[in-house]
């Protein structure tokens, strides 16, 4: 299991490949399903062009809350492994924001846990986006509720 905040740009697929190489040694033949979510910064939000973004966090609490939600997922589903990475600091459009990957024997629990983790993260992890617009900047006021 790996849960980390990153203060520099990262490549979700390179991180996954590196993590997977180690995981294959431990879990070869056991995982039939990997569900992955990657969140990426868009260049438009609520109708306005977005030129950049700063992700603020609460050092200590953010890591702890991410850890707790992953533990809750392992309590709820028979998971084999999980990887959660989240950016903080200054981002540009197209920069990866978050990577969530879940490994399990079967697909139902991988999908369910991956979805659970992104919804938990969006509603509970102390992270705040400030967007730089063409002129000025603004705090994003709230995340969208969990969609159906």
């Amino acid at each position, binding site marked *: 299991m790996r849960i980390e905040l990153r203060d520099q740009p990262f490549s979700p697929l390179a991180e996954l490949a590196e993590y997977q190489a180690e995981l294959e040694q431990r879990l070869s033949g056991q995982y039939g399903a990997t569900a992955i979510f990657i969140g990426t910064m868009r260049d438009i939000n609520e109708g306005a062009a977005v030129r950049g973004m700063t992700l603020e966090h609460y050092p*200590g609490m953010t890591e702890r809350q991410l850890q707790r939600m992953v533990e809750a997922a392992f309590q709820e589903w028979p998971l084999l492994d999980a990887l959660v990475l989240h950016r903080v600091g200054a981002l540009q459009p197209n920069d990866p924001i978050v990577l969530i990957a879940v490994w399990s024997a079967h697909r139902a629990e991988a999908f369910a846990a991956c979805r659970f983790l992104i919804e938990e*993260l969006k509603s509970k992890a*102390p*992270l705040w986006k400030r967007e730089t617009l063409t002129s000025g900047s603004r705090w994003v006021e709230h995340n969208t509720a969990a969609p159906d």
Partner: protein
Amino acid sequence: MAIHVKYFASLRDRLGRAGDELEASAGLTVAGVWAALHPDAPLPPNTLTAVNLDYAELTQAVREGDEVAFFPPVTGG
């Protein structure tokens, strides 16, 4: 008792500072910490509260040395 108070994101910007140090008598709740520091400003709606890095209700009692945080709805992911 000494309470360490932190503010984040838009709430910090609005207050103009990242935190406060509060010297208070025992028996204070999270809501009481806010009221002691901001007697003229009610807690903004939807403000989230934490004690020692875990979410906490406004009614939770705080103790000597606690870190109490107030922040707006989170927007990560």
